[in-house]
């Protein structure tokens, strides 16, 4: 018992609806009738039952899937690869909401699209009864009927105003050709994926010229050294505070020595002692003890070196930059020089 498909074309919806009624009268079940059109006609227009659709639940499944994927990435993986940061929660709430929202929406969109393709069996490969005039505003009615009914159906279709009729054997099922094509597409997608993974797992490495490992580098005690850049700040007379002019050594005058002595008493005697010998109230607490400023080692330093020690600190000695302006520091340098005399 072979089935035949009959395709008829109509100009508009009313005659199409009449045709469907006629086919029903002839005992053709609704499932065997397919209406094809270039624009959407609601089922009510054609006198058909509303379509049962499963897209909404599919979209919901996608949403749940996206939601769970987001929870996996935002809640589970931070525990697997924990990087504790002091006082910060491993899974902070508000940012998690953002990611969960985006994933849920993405899941919904992808599932709806995939659901559409699955529900209408796309991509449809193989032969399907169709007529190119359907995208020219004609409405096609396709009925799959038993051979014995074909003549009756044909005459019924002509009576209701079909202007084009086509009878054919029912479409053959999908052949192995389809599988071959799918395999080809799969292979096509697999190759770049595999190549990408080889790079990602560093099994393939491109030696790019500006990888930091490959840059020329000179170890601490190796030469030749690069010249200092033009804008580098010299040790002498550096501008350390914006707005304060470059520091110059202050001439050794009675005023300067007096200022230096006062500042030394405020800032230095606690450790270095009033005469600078390194025996102050606090000196017992430090190992090594504070330097003897009258010693030859200290006095052999240049003024600039003493200034730098005051500015940056040395060993346990803190920087005095916050307490002393550069001019003040030069006064203190003069005072330290005067200690030995």
């Amino acid at each position, binding site marked *: 018992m072979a089935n035949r498909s009959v395709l008829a074309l109509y100009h508009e919806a009313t005659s199409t609806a009449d045709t469907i009624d006629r086919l029903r009268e002839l005992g053709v079940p609704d499932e065997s009738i397919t209406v094809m059109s270039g624009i959407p006609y609601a089922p009510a227009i054609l006198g058909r039952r509303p379509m049962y659709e499963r897209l909404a639940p599919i979209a919901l499944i996608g949403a749940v899937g996206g939601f769970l994927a987001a929870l996996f990435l935002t809640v589970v993986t931070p525990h697997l690869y924990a990087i504790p940061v002091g006082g910060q929660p491993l899974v902070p709430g508000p940012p998690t909401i953002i990611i969960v929202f985006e994933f849920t929406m993405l899941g919904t969109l992808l599932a709806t699209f995939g659901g559409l393709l699955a529900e209408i069996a796309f991509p449809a490969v193989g032969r399907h009864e169709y007529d190119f005039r359907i*995208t020219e505003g004609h409405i096609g009615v396709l009925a799959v009927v038993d051979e014995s009914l074909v003549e009756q159906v044909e005459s019924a279709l002509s009576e209701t105003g079909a202007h084009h009729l086509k009878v054919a054997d029912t479409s053959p099922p999908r052949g192995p050709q389809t599988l071959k094509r799918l395999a080809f597409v799969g292979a096509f997608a697999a190759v770049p994926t595999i190549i990408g993974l080889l790079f990602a797992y560093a099994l393939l490495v491109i030696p790019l010229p500006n990888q930091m490992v490959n840059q020329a580098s000179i170890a601490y005690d190796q030469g030749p050294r690069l010249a200092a850049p033009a804008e580098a700040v010299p040790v002498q007379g550096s501008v350390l505070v914006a707005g304060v002019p470059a520091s110059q050594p202050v001439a050794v005058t009675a005023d300067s020595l007096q200022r230096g002595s006062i500042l030394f008493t405020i800032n230095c005697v606690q450790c270095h002692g009033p005469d600078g010998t390194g025996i102050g109230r606090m000196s017992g607490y430090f190992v090594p003890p504070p330097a003897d400023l009258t010693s030859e080692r200290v006095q052999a330093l240049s003024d600039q070196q003493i200034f730098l020690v005051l500015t940056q600190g040395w060993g346990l000695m803190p920087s005095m930059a916050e307490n002393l302006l550069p001019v003040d520091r030069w006064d203190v340098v003069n005072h330290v020089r005067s200690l030995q005399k």
Partner: protein
Amino acid sequence: MSTHETEYPVWRRPVLEDESLEEQAEHLRRRHLLLDPRYPWDMNDDVLKPMYQTSRTFWVLFVALFGLVMMGVVTWGFQIYWGLGITGLNRPINWGLFLVNTVYFIGIGHAGTFISAALRVMKVEWRRPISRAAETVTLFALGAAALSIFMHLGRLWKAYWMLPYPNQRQLWPNFHSPLMWDFMAILTYLTGSVLFVYLGLLPDLAMARDHTRGWRHRFYSILALGWRGTEKEWAHLETTLNIFSYVIIPVMFSVHTIVSWDFAMALQPGWNSTIFGPYFIIGALYSGVAAVIIVMAIIRKGMRLQYFLRDEHFNGMAMFLLLLTFAWAYFYFNDYIAPWYHGEPAMKVIFDLFRRGWAAPLWFLMLFGNILLPAATLWQRRVRRSIPALVVIAIFVQIGMYLERYLIVPVFLGYNELPFSWGIFVPRAGVILTIAALAFVFLGYLVFSRFFPLIPAWEILEGQILQGLRRIGRALLPTRTDVH
């Protein structure tokens, strides 16, 4: 075909008793696309023909745009080799033109989906011919935005480290990071937009498949996936489009909100505002609608789509633009007055800069382009129906919105809480890459327009069948049938 012409349903006009009604009907026909039906085969030709035409102007444009894009590729190569310094980025201005471009292009990308999805949900009929042209703007603008982010990356070849997969580095991306919010939002929006355009294209791809030969026929056969227009296909497609519309609108809102959070989460003066989310969304829609108006004018002229794109569509878009002008002005004032009243020292410096400093010309041009010009002109119907005037206004809106983003990114960044590090941004190589990104959008659109029908023929045919005329008293009025 021609023998059946009279039997096509939309050809059955209402019987009109007197001449005045005839005149009214003729007037309405000229004004409204949906009341001016054409035979489907003619409409198919109107939609498909511009796709085959590659005039001399087309090739000149193509070569010029391709050259600009290539120039950008070479500059990008230089930048990858020499580092981001050649784009003028340095402390304290670590975000320059690329971030301006990202925000700008994502903004433009908002209108396409909004026009398509929101107007679809609200069943606004004049969306029909412009929905795909607008969605396509979204596609390429989002592409350019993603490209701008990649341009901003140092060590670009390590970009894949952002992907979550077990790897030999024992590193896992932190999904709570704002960079991930951005990445996920743009990815979701881009995926949704591509699928949304594709879904709406399916019936038109089938139409193109049925009316082409050779490689084009094969190309459309593959893309149409075997669409036949069965009831099942239509019903499922409609449902899918509805679900997409409802999902993609909140996604669209989230995208630009998250982009605004990139700024608002920082303690940078001028950025740490709580109103940035909605303010950025309105700004995005504003620049996006203006961009769609420009694109509509270009394709109408360039592809001879005068039949499809009429005064009513430009009028609708212009009213939309006017509404957004006021909304934007409202949000801008909100964002301005609170810091102004706080009188925070860094903000005082910035506001002085806007009012009378070096940034004053930019600021006043922005206010002119974004508020004064549209608000002063668009309330006139004469302006709304004049395409050249609209294009000029839309271009000023584009300039204004670009300047607004420019003022927010590199200008605000130059004036932080540490005055010793203040600086002024000089874009340098970023300018070339910006031009290239813009050229990329135009080139993409140009190429797309020769491969895909920019006018959704099936949506217009559907609208023409659903819309009709009804006589009430002495007047003939358009009516619409809602079948859903």
